[in-house]
């Protein structure tokens, strides 16, 4: 509940404040958001599995974000930033889907 409230508050704050993303972070923010979404779905699934642990969630959330951003950063340095960010998004998307499937099984038993 608090998580949902936090999510809503965050979205509202972001929409209202509309802060300017620092130029340095602009390429990494979308990837970081996708990675955080992945962590969020993973946490949701773990919660439904009864395995949720806040420490794991915190660590996986932060490390997902940092690693995804770092991979893209590395790709930018290597000159394959676009392709690598696509790869990261694909992988995270697959994970999100599999987690969503697991959550769906929990909720709908199907």
């Amino acid at each position, binding site marked *: *509940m*608090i*998580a*949902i*409230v*936090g*999510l*809503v*508050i*965050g*979205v*509202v*704050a*972001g*929409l209202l404040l*509309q*802060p300017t*993303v620092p130029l340095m972070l*602009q*390429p990494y*923010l*979308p990837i*970081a*958001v996708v990675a*955080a*979404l*992945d*962590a*969020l*779905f*993973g*946490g949701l*699934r*773990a*919660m*439904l*599995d*009864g*395995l*949720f*642990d*806040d*420490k*794991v*969630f*915190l*660590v*996986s*959330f932060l490390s997902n974000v940092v690693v995804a951003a770092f991979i893209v950063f590395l790709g*930018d340095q290597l*000159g394959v*930033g*676009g392709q690598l*960010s696509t790869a990261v998004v694909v992988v995270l998307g697959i994970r999100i889907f*599999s*987690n969503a499937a*697991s959550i769906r*099984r*929990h*909720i709908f038993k199907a």
Partner: protein
Amino acid sequence: MSDERDRADDPVEDRVDEKPDRTEADDVGSEAADVDSDTVEDARDSGAEVADGAGARADEPRADQPGPDAAGSDEPVTPEALEPATSAEPEPEPASGWKRVAQLLRPRGTRSELLTGLLCLALGFALAVQVGQSTGDQLSSLRQDELVRLLDEVTQRADQLDAEVSDLEAIRDDLQSEDGRDQAARDLARQRAEQEGILSGRLPAQGPGVQIHVADGDRPLEAQALFNLLEELRNAGAEAIQVNGVRLVTTSYFVDSGGGVVLDGAAIASPYEWTAIGDPETIDRALEIPGGALPRIREEGGEATTTVSDQVSVDAVRIPGEPEYADPADEE
């Protein structure tokens, strides 16, 4: 609680079999199982706070359990049975999914929930910012190489357009200069038509010149005398000449006819009023030269006076006939 744990053992194994993909599934889920042991250790190592957190963790799933039970569900429940044993096998909740979700949504105010809420807040914030960013300005969300490519494309397009502009300008200049040439040609043609029209007698003319009054004396002047006068005027450079309203052209002729003179088939009679356009001084001097046209007329008893004027007008015209035999020669 404790008997719930006992009951839980059997279904747990079924559950694991049902979901083989969980082993390969996301790290969050599997880590959660692993980390349970860590948290226990943390709780052991550090002070009351961590112990409290660990306790909250332990309580959390347990708090979920009574829901299904209270609903009368006889489905086996409870993964926490294994939690104290730090089992590596995750314990799924087989209870009704919606009920479980409802339980999860119930605010509990634990540290775990606060932490999760904080992270979700950060996520929502970043999400909204990114959405605003990418919908607000298309360019700012592009990568550097994409921007460079875009710039290249725009530059290339600009070059193409520049080339097109210069092409079109060249065409326009061509057309304008052609137009200018045509205009010049038309001007030249008109000018030449005017010149030749005056010289051929097709156009009336005006300008400085002389007026000559010639009259018969005791006996009529012969055509020869008038022709001499005409030739003298031509020698002096007269450009347009008329006599008694008849334009004198290259084909003009004087013929004696009885008591008078026929000019170009029309009889004319004394006095003969000449008008010639040309340099007045030259014409005057040429006509008055001793033994010239006018002195000879006077010798034959005629009357001849010359009036020099800055502005005389030759208004008689002659339409030149089409040459019957002569064709324009090739210019080369």
